[in-house]
């Protein structure tokens, strides 16, 4: 499969060139955040307070790692189910978020927000946490360490493999891929 290499932060130009089904390798900074962190990020936005990182062009990785063994930057680090962040994602996109990495279905509202705000949703392979951890070279918790695996961390990734599921043109690989291979039982 041909692979598109992209770097973060993402620009609208890069996002527009991504289509459902594209294989990508991501290099640069991505931010780790899942359930509890999303609740807090949106609460800060609603209160008009600053966020722990700049959302402009940012990519969030829905992930809560296992603890790092000595000498390693991170433990196993595969994606969690993205749908639980659907309630928060449109607000974040309206404030500059350009990319989300996770796994699993997104709501109609989130998909519409990707079209309206020029953003993209990538799937990484769920359950491949040992493999994906090898593409993460640095890990620094930058907010809410008391949340443990749910804290916000700044991760540096190199050639992190993912597939474009939802693009900013309305494409949806979960629907298209499934329709292509469905057949009568």
């Amino acid at each position, binding site marked *: *499969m041909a692979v598109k290499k992209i770097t973060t932060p993402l620009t609208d130009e890069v996002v527009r060139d991504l289509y459902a*089904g594209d*294989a990508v390798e991501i290099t640069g900074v991505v931010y780790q955040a899942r359930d*509890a962190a999303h609740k807090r990020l949106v609460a800060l936005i609603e209160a008009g307070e600053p966020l722990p990182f700049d959302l402009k062009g940012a990519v969030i990785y829905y*992930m*809560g*790692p*296992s*603890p*790092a*063994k000595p000498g390693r930057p991170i*433990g*196993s*680090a*595969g994606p*969690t*189910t993205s*749908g639980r962040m659907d309630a928060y994602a449109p607000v974040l996109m309206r404030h500059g978020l350009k990319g989300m990495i996770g*796994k*699993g*279905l997104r709501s109609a509202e989130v998909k519409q927000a990707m079209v309206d705000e020029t953003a993209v949703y990538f*799937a990484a*392979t*769920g*359950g*491949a*946490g*040992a*493999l994906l*951890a*090898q593409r993460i070279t640095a890990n620094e918790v930058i907010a809410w360490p008391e*949340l*443990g*695996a*749910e804290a916000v961390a700044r991760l540096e990734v190199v050639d992190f*493999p993912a*597939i474009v*599921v939802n693009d900013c043109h309305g494409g949806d*690989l*979960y629907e*298209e*891929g*499934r*329709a*292509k*291979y*469905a*057949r*009568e*039982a």
Partner: protein
Amino acid sequence: MSPVRELDVGTVTEAVKDLCITANYDLPRDVYEALERAKKTEESPVGVEVLKQLLENADIAARDRVPICQDTGLAVFFVELGQDVNLVGGDLGAAIDEGVRRGYQEGYLRKSVVEEPAHARRNTKDNTPAIVHTTVVPGDRFKITMMAKGGGAENMSTLNMLKPAQGWAGMSQAVVDTVSRAGSNPCPPVVIGVGIGGTIEAVTLLAKKALLREIGSVHPDSRIAAMEAELLARINALGIGPQGLGGRTTCLAVFIEEMPCHIASMPMAVNVQCHAQRHKSVTL
């Protein structure tokens, strides 16, 4: 009268610690081989790529002694307690929790348990309490099985209180609908445990126990074996594929177990398991 064998619960703690760590590092052979077979038959190029990643991931986890998946699960245990075993040295439940505490700490496993789930959702920070299902059996052996049950697939599981008149047509449709609605969420290719009969609590436990069967094993009741084969074919015709990205491999195995139920009832539970089907047993 048969002799009673003493077993110190400290032995159980040590065994539980080891089970937690090794179950999370070493993908069972039957699952690995099922993924290898799927890689050969999968028609979707993206699906093949995903299956390759899963096999490579299992190799890395086993070699580097790291978790297969960062979601190292709720620690679920099935205990078969021989009625001629006399447990000494402390409380069995506390001994199992201590094993979980040590295993999740020493094994660098993620702590994924929150207490007060309806409000505070505070992490207990040691992955306790464990969930323990105990059955008393004849004999003087103590068998304990650990299952590391991740949240993503568990969330897609269903309990269906059907009408007896719906029969197999209704039951099989409910299983297919459960997997279809789940789509990419539970990390396919999945393994499906189905319980039929009993009561609401018995049928869900039956579905979970069904997941302990070895992939490739054939149910001794040929009627149930045929139902399992039919469901596997129907699920794999959905097109969901590895990670839901489209393909032929949505499910590696369907395991069905049944038990008697009330004349008015047709309970059916579907326990969805991700491809990281992690469980391990030891007999003490």
